[in-house]
Structures are given as C-alpha cells and as structure tokens.
C-alpha cells in the first residue's frame, strides 16, 4: 500500500512535469491518471518504502553521482588507450566477483554501474551467493578477491550506504 502511495506521488510529479505549466484541468486529470497508474502497477514499484525517508541516503546518492562520473571518466581513458595503442593490448575474459550487497535495488544499481563503465559489462548475477559475472576488456586479476577489489569496491561502499 505504501508503495502505491509513493508511486502516486512520483507519477503526479512526472505528470506535472509533462504538462508544464500546470493548470487546474491538467492537475485534476493528473490526479486521476496517477491513481490509475498506482492502482495498476503500484504493488511492484518498491519493496522497502521505509528507506525513502532517511535523509542520509539521499546525501550518499548525491555523493555517488560525482564518484560514478569520475570512475567512468577514468575507465574511458583506459579504453581509449587500449583502442589507439598499436598493439591493442586487450585480454578479454569473464571474471567472477563477490559483492556484499544483498538487496535487489543495490545489486541492480551495482550491475548497471559496472555495465555503464566502459570496459566492463555485467553478464549474469547469482543473488543467493552474492556473485556477479563480469566481462572485462582486460583481465588484470583472474581470482575472485583481486577482481572484486578492482571492479566492485569503488562503487560498493557508497551503494551499501544508499540501499542497504
């Protein structure tokens, strides 16, 4: 039920964004539409609505964005180096990494962050044991611990504060 209310609020805000500037008819129709959307799909929107009210989580989300952009920038440079180097020093392979994250949203954000970073790509996920399978353009470390340190740690410590 709380999930539906959250979706209702989100949908209303997005609707007002669509129909800017707002007037009365748009607002009324927007409320009806948001109720409809919340009724149809609200039960699957979020699973832990109580996490939304912690202000610290929003702070860490705010911190996460520059961190992610910086990591992305570094990885970009790395891939550019590999592409324009005459020898093309790549060593592609799939590695297994371990993550401490347990929640669905956390794992999803971690996997998507890894995919968005150039050079690494999440292939599969084993949620029960906390393993991710990553395709890596140049495998530096073949063992689980080393690869985890290289790929996962840089995002994990913030994501843990946001989603766990």
């Amino acid at each position, binding site marked *: 039920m709380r999930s539906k209310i959250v979706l209702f609020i989100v949908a209303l805000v997005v609707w007002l964004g669509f129909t800017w500037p707002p007037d009365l008819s748009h607002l009324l129709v927007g409320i009806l*539409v948001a109720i409809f*959307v919340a009724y149809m799909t*609200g039960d699957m*929107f979020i699973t832990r609505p109580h996490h939304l009210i912690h202000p610290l989580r929003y702070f860490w989300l705010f911190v996460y964005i520059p961190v992610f952009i910086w990591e992305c920038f570094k990885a970009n440079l790395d891939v550019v180096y590999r592409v324009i180097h005459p020898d093309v020093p790549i060593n592609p392979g799939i590695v297994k990494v371990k993550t401490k994250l347990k929640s669905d949203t956390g*794992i*999803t954000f971690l*996997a998507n962050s890894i995919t968005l970073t150039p050079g690494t790509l999440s292939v599969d996920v084993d949620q029960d044991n906390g393993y991710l399978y990553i395709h890596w353009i140049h495998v530096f470390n073949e063992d689980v611990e080393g690869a985890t340190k290289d790929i996962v740690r840089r995002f994990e410590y913030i994501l843990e504060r946001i989603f766990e």
Partner: protein
Amino acid sequence: MINNRDSQGMSVIVKTITRLTIGLILLYGVYILLHGHITPGGGFAGGVIIALSFIHIMLAFGKNVALEKLNQTWSKIFESTGALLFITIAFLGFFGGVFFNNFLDKGEHFELFSAGTILLSNIAIFLKVGAGLFLLFVALVLFKIGGRK
C-alpha cells in the same frame, strides 16, 4: 507482493528495472493518449505504449503476473467495448446533424478539454488497440507454450 526470486521470468536486474520504470511507462502512455488532440500521438500510439507496458511485465516476470493484472477475458471485453464506443460516438454525431459530427463544444486551442469528440474517440481507439495488441501477444505466446508440450 511480487517475489523477485521467483524462478519465472528474467534475472533480478531486469526485474528490478522493470519494477522501477513500469509505472512511468504507463504514465507516459496515458499522457500520449490524453494529449492526442493537441500534440502528436493519440489513441493508437498511446494504446501501443500502454499495451507494451503490460507486455514488458510479461517479459520480465512471466505470463502469470501479467495475466493477474489484466486477464484475457477482460482484454476481450475491453477490445469489443472500444470498437462499440467508437461507433456509438459516430452515431451520436446524428445529434449534430450528420454521422461522425463533432457535436461537442470545440473549446480553445491547446486546452486539455477541447476538440469535442476527438478525445473520446481517442479513448475508444486506445481501448481497442491496447487490448487488441496485448491479446495478440498473449495469443502468440501462449500458443507457443502449448505447442511445446
């Protein structure tokens, strides 16, 4: 409550993203539908987007979850009702003198409630197209499952 660890459907990543975005896709479809008379879009485009949001659920979570939200009987009823509603609107045009006459108040440009019967026709088309497309997908998917047994 929908269980993410259910064996049906795709991996947890797809399921989570579906959960987060599905409401907004549905909202966007309704927006396209309701603004069909003042911006590009309309009943057909909106209906397709709304049908796709349900198809999206079916792809991510398996057919049972999607059919729980909108089952075949109701989609069939919606489909026929949409077509009948459209014809009824056309018949109501006789109040204005001719078949298909736009007998309602046209209103101002760029207002949400304007253009007379066009908004109503869009809603009728949406019912027909959305339910029809969803039924089509369900029919093809279920048939394939039936054929494999």
